[in-house]
């Protein structure tokens, strides 16, 4: 009976041994737990690193863009277009850079000077300051000059001694052709604007128009 009891007690010891066998497999999970937390930490760190790198790239791009932007567009200066030359009739010629209209050649200056200086300049070109023939001619010249300036000198002046407007060729102004607006309390010169002919100080600056009579080749051919 005691031996039988001993045998019975042995069986539980076997089961206990089985339980002990089961415990070793539980160890690996314990070992895995710590590495898992570390792995999570590593993943988070990697994510943070990636975000930082992206931020750096983005900000560097912004810096480059901002550095380039401050360049301000330079002021654009309008370039005056060359005036188109009107076709000249056959057999009639004007010098280079002069414009023909009916029986005259015209030259429009590009700078501004006083009246006396413009008179001398036209003389140097073998021409005279403009002697206005009629309103049609005046209209043509206004269109010609309006891109350059708002007024121009012509060969008409007023002296207190004469108390008259006189052309530079000595003839007196015919008020039917032109009427002058403005003061004549002292010596004055005629300046043509877009809608009037005005009395201006001769020492003022204006562009000017020179004229010369058109030479006829017919005469030359005949002679």
């Amino acid at each position, binding site marked *: 009976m005691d*031996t*039988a009891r001993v*045998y019975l007690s*042995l069986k539980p*010891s*076997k089961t206990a*041994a089985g339980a*002990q*066998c089961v415990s*070793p497999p539980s*160890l690996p999970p*314990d*070992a895995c737990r*710590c590495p898992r937390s*570390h792995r999570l*930490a*590593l993943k988070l*760190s*990697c994510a*943070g*690193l990636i975000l*930082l790198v992206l*931020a*750096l790239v983005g*900000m*560097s791009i*912004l*810096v480059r863009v*901002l550095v380039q*932007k*401050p360049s*301000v567009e330079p*002021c654009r*200066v*309008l370039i*005056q277009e060359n005036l188109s030359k009107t076709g000249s009739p056959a057999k009639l010629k004007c010098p280079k850079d002069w414009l023909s209209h009916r029986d005259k050649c015209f030259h429009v200056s*590009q*700078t*501004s*000077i*006083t009246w006396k200086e413009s008179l001398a300049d036209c003389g140097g070109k073998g021409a005279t300051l403009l002697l206005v023939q009629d309103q049609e001619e005046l209209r043509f010249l206004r269109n010609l000059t309006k891109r*350059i*300036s*708002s*007024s121009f000198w012509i060969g008409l002046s007023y002296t207190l001694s004469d108390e008259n407007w006189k052309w530079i060729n000595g003839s007196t102004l015919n008020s039917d052709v032109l009427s002058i*607006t*403005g*003061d004549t309390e002292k010596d004055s010169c005629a*300046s043509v*604007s*877009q809608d009037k002919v*005005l*009395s*201006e*100080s001769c*020492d*003022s*600056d*204006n*562009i000017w128009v020179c004229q010369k009579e058109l030479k006829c080749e017919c005469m030359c051919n005949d002679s």
Partner: protein
Amino acid sequence: MPSSAHLQDPPPLLSRTLTQNEGQTSLRQSSSCGPSAASASESLSGSTESRIPHSKMLQGKLPRNIPLEYPAGLYCCYVVIIVLSVAVVALSVALSVKKTAQISTINTYAACPRNWIGVGNKCFYFNEIPSNWTLSQTLCKEQGAELARFDTEEELNFLRRYKGSSGYWFGLHRESSAHPWKWTDNTEYNNSVSIGGDEKHGFLSDNGFSSGRGYIVRKSICRKPNSYTSQCL
């Protein structure tokens, strides 16, 4: 108590019969129990041995391995993260400074109205429709400006360069050829550049400055401070 005695009686009888049967079976079991007992004892001893070295192995490995591997990697990560963070902070500071500068620059440029030209802290407008001096000044005032003046060499050079060959009214005038030139705000002109002619109203010409009669029609130039400066003031 007597009831318990009755309960106790049957077990002995049953146990006797069982003991006889069990004796036979016990003999068989004893033959098999030998190796099983030996294996049991071996397993017990084995488990105890394995327990101790396993625990020792684990204790030895975990503390030894973890500080060797993980901390080094972590330290590297920490260093890299710190460096990157510092760089980002520095860049953000630089960007904020540049953005501020950019904003001020933009304001300076954009503070002039459309079609006006900014030079320094001033705005200039070139009025291409000819009119007399008085009307030119009125048109400037309607836009919160005055006929132009120049306070610096830079402004003067800009006006000369930009105007082209036309004459433009600007802010100088005087009561007669015997009086000194004045700006539109009646401050006296310092004669830094001489003005040609004997008339009472100044205009910009190809030759520099000239004067003409006020009723002559000319283009004109207006000037006013830009709004950025006004805001600062």
